[in-house]
């Protein structure tokens, strides 16, 4: 765990990293202008990558950085989606538009408020496996509430928004890119900030963190709410894309498990790991859908198992570990006592 400050060399490296990241984001933002691109299957693939990467980052903050394994990201994703759909159908009469940024923001905020309300009792009482179990129960309660919500939430059929104004996936694509890049940037900032240090301190040792003056409960609830906010945004965006919000589609545990898989595969508790995981896993799911329709959960399931067996700490972590090992070897080689030694190893 890199808890100490950054060396000047690293800072130089990060500013170059930021430039590269901005260029890559810009390149993705220009993709819709490539002729024929918005009608290609890959365009849809990229949109899904952005949605998954956003949810994955939301879990990354809660579990990767703060160490609280949440199994309720789908609940916040669903609350976000339902907020958008319900506001659009019940309170905005005509619905003659699609894509309202305010609705999206409302989705995030409602999810975050819900997370604070539920997070204070849960996090003050539960930790570790018990917290994971509690959040699992939370998702199921939300699901039953939405099914039993009568005509307001549309029961098990859910809510349908008017698909009429839909013309192109392009706005969704850009908003998706914005959410994915924004959440990644937020995580990057978090990883280097004092607040992020508090999160990691809570993850490593809550008692020691409390003893050093970190308000543990507030930090945990804050991370939980921030994650919920981001997941809620993603849910709102996805609702604008599918136009029909239902318990089966939104309150589905896959919206928690797939992002976890992406995080763990890419490297949870790293900035870019979840993004990398989202690219790889969405490619696998999409390829499975195209080449093995019907059987694709088998492929995905097998892949999950294989990745966990052979790369349990993620792609980035494996690289990081190797880089660290190389650095130590170099330092040993440069040391004054080792100057006479011919081979550092």
């Amino acid at each position: 765990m890199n808890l100490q400050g950054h060396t000047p060399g690293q800072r130089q490296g990060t500013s170059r990293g930021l430039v590269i990241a901005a260029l890559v984001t810009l390149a993705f933002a220009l993709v819709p202008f490539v002729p024929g691109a918005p009608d290609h299957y890959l365009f849809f693939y990229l949109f899904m990558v952005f949605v998954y990467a956003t949810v994955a980052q939301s879990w990354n903050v809660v579990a990767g950085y703060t160490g609280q394994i949440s199994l309720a990201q789908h609940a916040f994703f669903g609350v976000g989606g339902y907020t958008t759909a319900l506001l659009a159908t019940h309170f905005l009469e005509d619905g003659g538009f699609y894509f309202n940024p305010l609705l999206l923001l409302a989705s995030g905020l409602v999810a975050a408020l819900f997370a604070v309300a539920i997070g204070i009792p849960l996090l003050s009482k539960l930790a570790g496996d018990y917290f994971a179990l509690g959040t699992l129960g939370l998702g199921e309660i939300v699901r039953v509430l939405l099914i039993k919500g009568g005509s307001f939430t549309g029961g098990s059929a859910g809510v349908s928004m008017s698909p009429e104004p839909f013309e192109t996936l392009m706005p969704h694509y850009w908003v998706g890119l914005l959410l994915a890049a924004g959440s990644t940037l937020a995580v990057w900032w978090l990883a280097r900030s004092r607040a992020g240090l508090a999160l990691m301190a809570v993850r490593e040792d809550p008692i020691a963190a409390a003893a050093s003056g970190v308000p543990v409960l507030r930090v945990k609830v804050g991370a939980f709410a921030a994650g919920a906010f981001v997941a809620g945004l993603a849910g709102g965006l996805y609702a604008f894309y599918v136009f029909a919000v239902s318990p089966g589609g939104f309150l589905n545990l896959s919206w928690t498990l797939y992002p976890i898989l992406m995080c763990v595969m890419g490297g949870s508790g790293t900035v870019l790991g979840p993004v990398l995981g989202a690219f790889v896993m969405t490619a696998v799911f999409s390829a499975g859908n195209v080449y093995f329709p019907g059987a694709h959960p088998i492929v995905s399931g097998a892949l999950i198992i294989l990745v966990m067996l052979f790369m349990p700490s993620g792609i980035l972590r494996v690289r990081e570990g190797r880089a660290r090992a190389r650095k130590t070897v170099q330092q040993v080689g440069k040391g004054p006592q080792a100057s006479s030694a011919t081979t550092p190893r």
Partner: protein
Amino acid sequence: MSGLAILAELLVNGVLFGAMYGVAAIGLSLIFGTMGIIFLAQGAMIVLGGYAAYWAFRLLGVDPYVMLFLLLPGSLLVGSAMYQLLFRRAAAMQDKNTSLLIAVGLSFMLESVMSLAWTPDPRSITTGYSSGSFQFLGMNWSITRTAGFFVALVATIGVTQFLRRTMIGKAVRATSEDMTSAALVGIPPHRVNMIAFAIGIALAGIAGCTLAATYTIDPYFGFLLSLKALIALALGGLGHVGGALAGGILLGLIESGSSYLLPGWGDAVGYAVFLLVLMFRPQGLFVRTVTKT
């Protein structure tokens, strides 16, 4: 029939059916106790056991309660192999996400393999006595549910006695208490894990067999069962065999009671109780509080 009599019958049925949750929860409890992971694929394994019983009945005419004894050694073997192939490496790791995700992957795979091989249609075993019932204490008792209850009871007693009386059982308990110390006194952790895991899968097989005989199964039923087993486990207290059975029975009672009083809310009431118990009595409802030193 008066409302009260209906309620009484519902509650009895809840108790009988809840015992099946209890058996599933005991399996989860053993695996959690030794390996420290929540084995989310338990429900899928139960459904797999149910299909085994179903096909044995359909193709070979084997009675599900005979199949119970045939399934036992088979599922023990399957469980041991699964531990060695899938969980051996992950069990040794500090990070429990890995084992959790392996279980999730396994559960996805099993669900879709079963759905592809045997279609997603719900299936049930219909024997001559399936819809039969007998009169006792002025109530109708379903034969299959009552049989399921006694199977659950025998399984629980079997596991408790195994843990209490045999050397291996004591090793399993020691590992649940403290893995490092158990390893220090010479208990091989992987063998203990494997045995606990195998028994957990065997219990899933037993639960599946009785489930297929009383109820309908479909490939995607497993996840719900895993959740129910988890709730039962939390009600009874993690790592407590008798408590897990009691937790399952209590969950059955809660579900049937709320299906009478608040139709459609049964699941939500179950989860709400689960959350409350987790928060206020995380050691379970049936364990006298002992502070561990």
